[in-house]
Each structure stands twice: as structure tokens, then as C-alpha cells.
């Protein structure tokens, strides 16, 4: 069995499961974000009165944080009341950060746990060896009532990154390269495991990027086998430990795809589609706004990379550089390390930990005709504001180099 199959087996009280089987599994951690007041409405419509496991339930206010509209404020208010009334202890209010990052730092997610959130990027949890997947409001409401959810056991596809990436090439470039090659429907209904030398050498923060973006190829869940790097991260955030399921030798993957990243150059997804991936275009592309942040590209390592590129320099005139740490912890660590000061001195604009302009709600919405380079994960028309704005997805290194030059360029060309 695969480690993810063992996780699903344990949670559904079985010793053996296999791909295609439907299991009813106990959920270890359920999370609702502030887009989903519908969860509470569905909970009531389904006849719910008491949340089955308040201690395994969490709410995170991240998409509209702090509230930009009266409606959003009212949604927050109703969610706070629900948490108080149900005795839900894990309410991460405004400014705590993006749900996925907040949970990876919560000490509640570790190898072999089942994490379900009302958000597609829950695949991020795979980088800690957990089974993490996204659902809609109705599924979430049934979890709140029963503590369980049904899953179809997925087949597992293996993406292997070998080699040492050149300087200036990040996990983001690798995963964009893979999505461009395999396309956005490559992993529908499947889980994706990342392995290989380049992954083993990768910092934990970079591993999150791979698993986070696995959903952009359709993946249900992602996975990286936990190792010393994972355990070090987990113990830093208070994970108490537990059994670590490991994939049996001889497990047969659905497919295995290999990439050698030793000569990879920075990648971008061109406006409109995450799988329209190319090297940085040769022509000059003037950029109005650069956004560094989100559950994909707003971690300490990303902020450090930007600070190193911009230290003692200035953001190009005519370009706005919006920086939003993915969590309060990251914000604090970046403050202590001096990265925030460096970036603010260079002309960056800082905002509250959360999703920021990633889904076009606030804090940096794009006007018609504008061009943006972002470290986030989605770039379809209208994602960050006007449908007539162009969004390029890139790595934090590319984003910072672009902010410095005012035109789309990779850090390798500085």
C-alpha cells in the first residue's frame, strides 16, 4: 500500500484499502475559511445542532482579512458566534494568515493525518506527509455533524525531480515546468507524490509549494515522504508525533514522470492559464504590479529571497510591489530577520497576513489593461480584479527581480 492508502485505511478502521475503493474516514482536522458561511447554513439545513468534534475543527479568516466590506464583516461575525456557541477552540481570526499556512504551523497536522478544508489548495498538507484535500460547503457540513467523510481511494502518480537546480531557480519553477508539460488535467482523481534528489534537498517551505500547486494539475491530494527536514519543521511547530505511515516497497504507481532540473531556467505561466508555461519571454513586458504572497509564495524563504535581491536598491519607478506574509509567524520571523525593513526601504508595500489580492477581493486589485507578476497560483482572466488585466505566475525570485527592473525578468538575468 501507499502511505496515503495506509492513512485512509487507518482512518476508516481497515487494515487494507486499494485504489477505487470508497471508504468512510474519520477526519483529523477540518477547517472552514471565511468564504464559506454556507457551511454553517448547510450544517443547519442538514439538521446539525452540535459539532461532533469541536477540538478537531478550525475556522480561519484569511480571504477577507481584515474585512473589506460590510458583508464580509458580517460573515466573520456570524462565524465567531458559531465558534463560541459550539466551543470550537481553534478560531484563527484576522491577521493569523492563509488557512493552509496557519494549519501547517498549528502543530495539528502531521504524517498520517487526514485534513479537510473548504479550499482546493489543501493539497499543501501532503508536504507534511498528511492526506489533505479540499471540499465544498455541503461536504464540510457533513464532517461537522458526523466527524467523517467518504473518499474514493486515489491512485498515486509519482513526479520525480532529479538534479540540483541552478541558482535563482526555485520549487515554483519546477512545479510550473511540470504543470506546463503534463497540463492541468493530468492528475484528476489522483494523488501526486513528489520525490527525487531535488525534493530531498529542498527546504520544507519549498516542498509546500510543490504540494500546493499539485491541485493545479487536478490532484486530489499530494504527498512527500516525511524525512528529517519534515520532522524538524514539525517539532518546531509543536507536532506531538505519531506513527509515520510509509509506502510499501514494490507499490505500483499509476505513472512515473521524471524531470532533471539541473539546467532548468525560471518559468512563468502566461496570462490566462496556469498550464501555459514558458521560459521568461524575450520581449520587454512592463509590469504595473508585483505581488509576493499567498499560500503558494508568501513564506519566509520567499520573503528572504526578495529581500536579498532588493537589499540597498529600489523598486522600479512605475511599479508597485505588494508583499503579504502568508502568516503572522512568517511576518514576525521576517521582521526579526530584518527582511521587512529591507523590503520597505526598497519601496515595497506590506499588508496583513492573509490571501490579499490573490482572488481579487482587496489589497491590490488590478485595473483594466494592467500587468501583474504574482507568486500565487492562478491567473485566469479576472482572478485578481479586471478581466482585462494580464497576470503572469512566477517564482518569488522572478517576482523580486521584476519589481527591481519594472519589467518581467528572472533573477538569473540581474
Amino acid at each position: 500500500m501507499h502511505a496515503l492508502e495506509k492513512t485512509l485505511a487507518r482512518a476508516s478502521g481497515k487494515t487494507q484499502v486499494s485504489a477505487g475503493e470508497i471508504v468512510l474516514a474519520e477526519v483529523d482536522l477540518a477547517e472552514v475559511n471565511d468564504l464559506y458561511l454556507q457551511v454553517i447554513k448547510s450544517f443547519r439545513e442538514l439538521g446539525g445542532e452540535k459539532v461532533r468534534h469541536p477540538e478537531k475543527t478550525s475556522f480561519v479568516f484569511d480571504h477577507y482579512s481584515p474585512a473589506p466590506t460590510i458583508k464580509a464583516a458580517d460573515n466573520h461575525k456570524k462565524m465567531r458566534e458559531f465558534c463560541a456557541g459550539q466551543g470550537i477552540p481553534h478560531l484563527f481570526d484576522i491577521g493569523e494568515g492563509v488557512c493552509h499556512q496557519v494549519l501547517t504551523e498549528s502543530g495539528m497536522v502531521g504524517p498520517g493525518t487526514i485534513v479537510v478544508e473548504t479550499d482546493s489548495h489543501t493539497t499543501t498538507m501532503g508536504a507534511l506527509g498528511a492526506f489533505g484535500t479540499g471540499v465544498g460547503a455541503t461536504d464540510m457540513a457533513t464532517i461537522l455533524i458526523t466527524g467523517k467523510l467518504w473518499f474514493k481511494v486515489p491512485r498515486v502518480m509519482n513526479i520525480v525531480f532529479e538534479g540540483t537546480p541552478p541558482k535563482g531557480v526555485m520549487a515554483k519553477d519546477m512545479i510550473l515546468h511540470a504543470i506546463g508539460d503534463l497540463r492541468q488535467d493530468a492528475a484528476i482523481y489522483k494523488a501526486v507524490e513528489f520525490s527525487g534528489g531535488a525534493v530531498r534537498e529542498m527546504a520544507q517551505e519549498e516542498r509546500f509549494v510543490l504540494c500546493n500547486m499539485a491541485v493545479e494539475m487536478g490532484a486530489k491530494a499530494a504527498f512527500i515522504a516525511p524525512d528529517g527536514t519534515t520532522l524538524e519543521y514539525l517539532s518546531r511547530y509543536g507536532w506531538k508525533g505519531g506513527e509515520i505511515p510509509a509506502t510499501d516497497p514494490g507499490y505500483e504507481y499509476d505513472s512515473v514522470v521524471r524531470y532533471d532540473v539541473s539546467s532548468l531556467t525560471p518559468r512563468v505561466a502566461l496570462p490566462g492559464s496556469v498550464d501555459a508555461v514558458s521560459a521568461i519571454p524575450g520581449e520587454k513586458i512592463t509590469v504595473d504590479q508585483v505581488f509576493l504572497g499567498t499560500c503558494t509564495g508568501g513564506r519566509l524563504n520567499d520573503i528572504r529571497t526578495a529581500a536579498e535581491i532588493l537589499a540597498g536598491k529600489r523598486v522600479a519607478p512605475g511599479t508597485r510591489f505588494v508583499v503579504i506574509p502568508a502568516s503572522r509567524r512568517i511576518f514576525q520571523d521576517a521582521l526579526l530577520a530584518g527582511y521587512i525593513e529591507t523590503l520597505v526601504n526598497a519601496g515595497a508595500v506590506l499588508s496583513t497576513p492573509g490571501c490579499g489580492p490573490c482572488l481579487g477581493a482587496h489589497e491590490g486589485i488590478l485595473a483594466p489593461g494592467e500587468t501583474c507578476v504574482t507568486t500565487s497560483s492562478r491567473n485566469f482572466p479576472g482572478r485578481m480584479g479586471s478581466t482585462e488585466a494580464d497576470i503572469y505566475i512566477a517564482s518569488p525570485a522572478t517576482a523580486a527581480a521584476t519589481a527591481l527592473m519594472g519589467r518581467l525578468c528572472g533573477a538569473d538575468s540581474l
Partner: protein
Amino acid sequence: MNIIRGRVFTFGNNIDTDQIYPGRYLELTEHDEIAAHVMEGADPSFASKMKRGDIIAAGTNFGCGSSREHAVITLKNSGVAAVVARSFARIFFRNAVNLGLLVVEIPDLGDLGLRDGDEGELDVLRGVFAAPGGSRTFAPLPPHVLAIIEAGGIFRLFREKGAGVFG
């Protein structure tokens, strides 16, 4: 609802939830208001062209992107009788079943040469989709999934049977 007949409207691959229901309308909660924006991101004229009982036919990965249920609510409440696609994004598929929207996966739909306005006939139990260009077979939905869709979603069943409804 064993046999569904309706006009077909065709869409391509990777129709994401923003094309089905643009994010700028996420604050709406009334189902009729949500229905008014059906498929607006993919075809702004769709809402005015379509009638109750029409069928959407699409390529691979229909419903990819966010986990929003508005995408299902808009299709169902505008009267789309079924979505047939070469494949579905899984969160969308789950949401559709939970809310009672008929979704059918037909892997070789692509070479049927469907055109907008074609009359399509979906035989849900036998697993056959017929159109002017020919017919395609598909694996019928498992009985417990069909039962949920027929009940209009899981709400009533769940109140009666709890988690057992997922059989």
C-alpha cells in the same frame, strides 16, 4: 429522470469554476440571483440562450479551480438538466452530487462532433448518450450516487439516514 432529452450546449476543456460562476458574484446567496450568471465567464450570452432542461457537454476537467458550490447552484437553478463531460474536477463532482445536479462522465465524448443546439438524449440507467452524430456509452453512476441526485441532493436523505446515505 432515467431519460433526459434536451438541447446541447458545448464547451471546451478546463472550464473552471470562474467561467461557470465568476468570483465577483460570490457574495450573492439567493439561488435565483446566482442562476442569472450561469456560465457567464465562458459565454456571457448563455443565460439568455438556454432553457430549462438543456444539457451542457464539455471536454476534460470541467469544474476545475476553486471549491465554490456556487458553480453547482448556478447550473442547477438555471435549469441545466445535466452536465456531460469527458472528465470532471473532483471537488466540483462531489459538490454536484451533494446538491443534486446530474453529472455524467463520458470519456470518448470528444469525437461525437456535438454542435450547439443538437438534440441530446441521456439514458442514465443504461449508460448511453445519443446525439445526431451517434451515441456513446458510459459507466452508469453507482446506485447510491444516483439515489442522492434523484433526491435533489443529500439534504433530506442525510436528515433521515445520517452518514449512511453515502452507502
